[in-house]
C-alpha cells in the first residue's frame, strides 16, 4: 500500500515541477522547431545556428519596436512524435506568436494540424511540396519546393539534348519527395526514365544500383539525396568508370560535399540556391546583399560555411521580423502580414506570398552550378532553353 502512495506522490511532484515553469511576458516570443540532433541534424543544426544569429542581431539593434525578441528552440530529433509535443509546448506553454521550422517535411506535416487548430503562423524550413500545396491558412515555407529544382534540371537536360535519365534517390523524405517530382514532371519535359533506383540513408555502397544503371539506356544520372550518400555515389560512379553526366540535387549544395566526394566531385552538376555562388553573382543581383551578409556573418560567428539550409531559417526569421516591424503583434496579424510579403530578397530566392501561394518562390530561386577545381562554379544561364521549356 505504501508503495502506491509513494509512487503517486513522486508522479505528482514530477508534474508540479514541470508545470511551474513560467516566464514573464515582456519580449516577443518566437518559437523554433529544428531537428538539431538525429538523422536530419544536417538541416537542423545550421538552421538553429542561423536563427539564433538573426535574433541576436535583431536584439543588438534594439529589438523590434522597442521589444526584444526571444527565440525558444526545441529539438524535434526528426521524430514526428517529438515534433508534435514540442509544437504543443511552444503554443500552449510558451505562448509564442509564431513558429519557424520544423526542418523536415515529416515533422512539418505532423505539426500542421496543431498550428491550424490553434491559429499560430508557422514558416516551415522543409522542402516537401505537400506542405503548402494546397495552401493552408497558417502554414508558410521558405525552402524551395522540390519541383522547382526538378524543373531546372530538366530544362538543363533539354539544352544538353539528353532525353533518357536514370534516377538514384535516397529512401527518406527528401529523396522520396524528389523522386515523386522527377517522375511526375518527366513527361511534360519529354524525359524518359530508364532506371529508377533507390538507396538507404545509411547505405555504404551503391555500386550495385549504379551497375544496374550502367546497363540501362540512360544518358544521365540524377541522384537525389543529402550527405554523405551522394558523395559515396560520386565515388562509386568514378570507380565503375561511368562517364554519364551526374546531376545531383540541392541537398548537397555545400562545400562539405566537395570535401567528401574528393576528386570524384569534378563535373557534377546541381541546381542550387544562390548562396554557394554568392560571390560569383553580378552586383546587380537583388539577392546579393542578403546573401553576402549571411555568408559573412555565419562565417564570423560559427567559423563555418553558411549553407543553403541555414538560409531557410534566415528567411523564415527575417519574414517574421518583417511582419512584426510592419506592426503585427498577434498571431493573426502576423499571418496576415506574412501573406502580404512581396519581393523579399532572401537567401532562398525572391519571395512573393499570396493567399494561394504560401511557398512564394519561382524556379529562378535555383541556378545551375557545377564543380570545377574543388569549388562551385555558376553555369551561366542562356535563358534560351529556359523559356522554351514546356510549362504546364
Amino acid at each position: 500500500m505504501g508503495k502506491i502512495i509513494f509512487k503517486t506522490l513522486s508522479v505528482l511532484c514530477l508534474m508540479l515541477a514541470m508545470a511551474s515553469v513560467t516566464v514573464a511576458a515582456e519580449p516577443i516570443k518566437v518559437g523554433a522547431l529544428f531537428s538539431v540532433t538525429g538523422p536530419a541534424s544536417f538541416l537542423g543544426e545550421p538552421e538553429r545556428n542561423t536563427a539564433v544569429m538573426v535574433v541576436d542581431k535583431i536584439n543588438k539593434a534594439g529589438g523590434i519596436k522597442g521589444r526584444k525578441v526571444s527565440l525558444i528552440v526545441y529539438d524535434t530529433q526528426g521524430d514526428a512524435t517529438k515534433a508534435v509535443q514540442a509544437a504543443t509546448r511552444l503554443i500552449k506553454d510558451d505562448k509564442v506568436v509564431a513558429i519557424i521550422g520544423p526542418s523536415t517535411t515529416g515533422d512539418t506535416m505532423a505539426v500542421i494540424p496543431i498550428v491550424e487548430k490553434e491559429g499560430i503562423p508557422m514558416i516551415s524550413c522543409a522542402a516537401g511540396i505537400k506542405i503548402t500545396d494546397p495552401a493552408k491558412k497558417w502554414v508558410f515555407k521558405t525552402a524551395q519546393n522540390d519541383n522547382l529544382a526538378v524543373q531546372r534540371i530538366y530544362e538543363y537536360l533539354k539544352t544538353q539534348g539528353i532525353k533518357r535519365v536514370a534516377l538514384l534517390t535516397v529512401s527518406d523524405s527528401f529523396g522520396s519527395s524528389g523522386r515523386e517530382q522527377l517522375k511526375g514532371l518527366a513527361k511534360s519535359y519529354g524525359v524518359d526514365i530508364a532506371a529508377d533506383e533507390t538507396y538507404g540513408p545509411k547505405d555504404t555502397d551503391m555500386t550495385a544500383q549504379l551497375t544496374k544503371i550502367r546497363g540501362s539506356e540512360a544518358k544521365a544520372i540524377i541522384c537525389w539525396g543529402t550527405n554523405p550518400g551522394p558523395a559515396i555515389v560520386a565515388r562509386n560512379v568514378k570507380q565503375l568508370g561511368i562517364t554519364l553526366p551526374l546531376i545531383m540535387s540541392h541537398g548537397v549544395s555545400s562545400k562539405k560535399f566537395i570535401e567528401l566526394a574528393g576528386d570524384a566531385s569534378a563535373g557534377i552538376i546541381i541546381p542550387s540556391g544562390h548562396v554557394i555562388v554568392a560571390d560569383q553573382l553580378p552586383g546587380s543581383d537583388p539577392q546579393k546583399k542578403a546573401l553576402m551578409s549571411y555568408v559573412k556573418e555565419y562565417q564570423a560567428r560559427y567559423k563555418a560555411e553558411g549553407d543553403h539550409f541555414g538560409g531557410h531559417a534566415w528567411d523564415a526569421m527575417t519574414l517574421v521580423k518583417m511582419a512584426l516591424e510592419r506592426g503585427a503583434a498577434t498571431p493573426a496579424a502576423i499571418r496576415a502580414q506574412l501573406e502580404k510579403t512581396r519581393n523579399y530578397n532572401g537567401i532562398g530566392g525572391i519571395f512573393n506570398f499570396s493567399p494561394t501561394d504560401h511557398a512564394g518562390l519561382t524556379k529562378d530561386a535555383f541556378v545551375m552550378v557545377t564543380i570545377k577545381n574543388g569549388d562551385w562554379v555558376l553555369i551561366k544561364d542562356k535563358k534560351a532553353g529556359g523559356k522554351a521549356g514546356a510549362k504546364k
Partner: protein
Amino acid sequence: MASSDQILQYCLSGLSTGAIYALIGIGFAIIYNSTGIINFAQGEFVMLGGMLTVFFLSVAVLPLPAAVTAAVLVATLVGVIFERLAIRPLKDAQPITLIIITIGGSILIRGIVMLVWGKDTHALPAFSGNEPLFVGGATILPQHLWIFVITVLIIAANRLYFHHSISGKAMRACSYNARASRLVGIDVKRMVLFSFAISAAMGSMAGIIIAPLTMTSYDVGVMLGLKGFCAAIIGGMSSGIGTVFGGLIVGVLESLGAGLVSSGYKDAIAFFILLIILFLRPQGLFRKGETERV
C-alpha cells in the same frame, strides 16, 4: 537482363561489404561466447575506429599507419573501460539487463563523439589511391583489396589466438562452460575483459578500413552493427569461419538484391532470408544443433 559482368560486379561489391560485416560479426560472437551478452555497442567501436583515425590524421597530424594504430589502441581502451565500468560490476545480472546496459553504452559513446567532433561526416583518404582496378568486366578499388587482405589477416590471427595460445584456449573454454573453467583455474573475469578488448579492436579496424569508401560520422555504427549482428547469427555465433560466411552471405545478398530485384527492398530481402534461415536452422547455418542446457 543482367550480364555476367554485372553479376560479377554485384558479387565483388557484396563481398567487400560482406567482409566488413564479418569482422563486426566476429566481434559480436567473441563477446557473446564469453559472456552471453549481445553487445549492442559493437557498432560504436566501428564508428570509433573511423572517427579516431580521422582525428589522429587531421588534428594530431600523424602519418596514416601511426594514426591507424593509435585509433585501434584508443578504441580498445574504450572497450576495456566499458567492460570494467559497466559490465564487470554486475554479478548474476540477467542477459536482458546486460543488453540494456550495452544499449546505454552505445548511446553514451555516440553522444560523446557527437559532442566532441560534431555531427559532420568526414572522409578518410584511401590507403593507396583511388584508381579503379579491373577484374574481368568489373571494377574494384585498391581499398577493396586492403579490406580483403586485412580481413583475412585478422581472421587468421584470430584462429591462431583461439586455437594455439593458452589465453585463447582458455577463452574458448569459458565459452563452453564458465563454471568448469573457473574450477580448472581460469580467470574468467579476465577472459571477459579480453573478449571486450579483442572485439573492440576488431570492430575499430573494420571501421578504419571501410571509412575511405563510405566516409564516417558519429552515427555510422548503428546500421553496420545490425548487419554485423546478422552475420554472426547466420554464422551460428561462431567466432571463426561461420561468421565470415555469414557476413559474406549478407553482403552478397544485399548487393544482388539491389541489382537484380529492387534496391528499395534490398535490406528487406536480406532480413527475410535471415528469417528463413533462422526458422529452418535456428542454430545458424554452420553449427550442429545443440541441446539446451537446463
